[in-house]
């Protein structure tokens, strides 16, 4: 089975689903169940995320949203906030072909 990245414009509906899922999943990944997630929160400085926890979150999102994410394109220096992460996921969904 091969995969290909969809060169798609930002899917706003998917982006909102991603944001909703992050709000539920990220506290679990960070083992901070009471954490309230907002799109403007900084991944590293506000939430203390690292590369490994980022990948864990992406796995959770794949499972939860039934998508696959092409992580080769991740530029963590350009992706600073929760909203940036949602943008990335919504524009890097991978479908089976």
């Amino acid at each position: 089975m091969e995969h290909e990245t969809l060169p798609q414009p930002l899917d706003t509906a998917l982006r909102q689903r991603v944001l909703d899922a992050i709000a539920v999943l990220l506290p679990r990944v960070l083992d901070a169940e009471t954490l309230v997630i907002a799109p403007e929160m900084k991944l590293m400085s506000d939430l203390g995320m690292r590369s490994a926890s980022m990948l864990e979150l992406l796995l959770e999102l794949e499972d939860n949203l039934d998508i696959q994410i092409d992580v080769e394109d991740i530029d963590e220096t350009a992706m600073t906030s929760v909203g940036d992460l949602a943008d990335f996921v919504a524009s890097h969904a991978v479908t089976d072909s």
Partner: protein
Amino acid sequence: MTTLETVACYLPDKRVPVEDVAGQLGLTSMQTRLFRRYLGLAEIRLDPGGTLLDLLSAAIWRLSGLRGREHLVHYVLYARVMPVVAPYPVNPLRDLCRTFGLGHAVSFTVTHHACATGLLAVDLAGRLLAEDGDPDALALVLTGEKTFTRDARLVPGTSIFGEAAAACLVGSDGPADRVLSYAASIRGEFDGRLDELPDMAARFEKEYPASLAEAISAAAAQAGVSVGELSLILPHNVNALSWQRLCRRIGFPVGRVLLDNVPVIGHAFCADSFINYATAVDRGLLRPGDRYLIAAAGLGATFSAMVVEH
């Protein structure tokens, strides 16, 4: 000029899925899955019943270029990550030298560049040979380690170590692969346990790609080639994803980075460079005159690269 005369490798027969290793280490389901799904690691090799001596011996036995030339080996360098691998006074390196007729050689261990120590050892071997006075003198560089502690099995969220060994005969002349340059950047500010120092770990993650890219650029510049002119990059096998991202950063085709061993061997400490070299030669990926680069990064931290002409 330093030359890589011949390289031999040993991969233990036992293949262990990364999921089995992760299970033994108590990783969560998600921590486990990301190794295969994102990092490109699938299985490692282990020799559970073998000692360090067995592991390194198996590589030397395969080094056909050594037979009959033992008397020319003036130096034996064991490049490793772990500072301690045997209880005093056990000395596997001296035992090896005696076993293989190298008892006359000056032998010592090289560490402190972590997984980049193999390149340091090649450079050091070349410097020793250049000052030796005997143009036929050789040095033997050994790599390979046992995964005997948790730290020797796992870099959390990044890599899983496997057992394998390599032996490289280094010379100073002759028709062999010629070392054109060596660049190493030592970043002592990253010395410490990443799992206990989150701020340092975050800085290390942020600076890792640029630092390795700088080492690659520096080695290429010293060799008088552009990065794009390199025929191949032989990576350390920490994981595939970090190399995919680095290639995007430096504009180098990921298809010219030999990542094929990452899923089937894992990260074999300092032996990765030599194992990947052997794979490149076996598959005919290097033609005479090709200039290729060997790159490695070590926790602590060291970023190294070496340009070699085939």
